[in-house]
């Protein structure tokens, strides 16, 4: 189960990278401010 969610995290991260790299417009006007638990 742990492995499944770790793989899912990596897949989501890779897809997120592709999304950021290929976006043409200023889609990240509000960058990722998130708490560092």
């Amino acid at each position, binding site marked *: 189960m*742990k492995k499944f*969610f*770790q793989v*899912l*995290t*990596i897949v*989501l*991260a890779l*897809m*997120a*990278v592709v*999304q*950021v*790299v290929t*976006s043409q417009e*200023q*889609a*990240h*006007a*509000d*960058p*990722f*401010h*998130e*708490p*560092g*638990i």
Partner: protein
Amino acid sequence: MRSINHFKADLTGWIGALCMLVFAVIAIYKFNQSGLLFFLMLFLRDIFAAWFLITREISQQKATNKIYELLAYTSSALPLFYIQQSDASLFALKLCSLMAIFGFMISTLALFELGTSFGISPTKRSIRDGGLYRYFRHPMYLGYVIAESGFMLLSPLNIGLFVISVIMYWLRAKTENKILR
């Protein structure tokens, strides 16, 4: 299925879980608004952090000084205060976003590895040495440092905040090393 700790036995765990659920709602809202997959990854992290907080092991030892607890919670909230100059370039924004994705990916992987040993303030639970913990002593903090370093590209004022944040992570790591020894 793991048992959920009694409300009174681990009140801080329940409060922390509630905070993480609020962050999860914010993350899924942001995903819905922007369609950015980063927020879906964050939602996953927040939901599991909440689950691990209410099912976590009872601590064997805690930091005796309350200042360490204060340090941990302050350090957790600090990244929310990074600012962005309105004239930041698209390149800087993209690079900042990529570092955030990479950093949070490392932290989320570490969270799954930590599981029910997860906590915010320095506490001794069972020690994990698999996955990323085989290579790094504090992969969650490493991930946050990577994620936050990108914010220095958005404003020179963030450099000061980043230095404070790194010092806080270092102090948290040092305290945890002492307790886990």
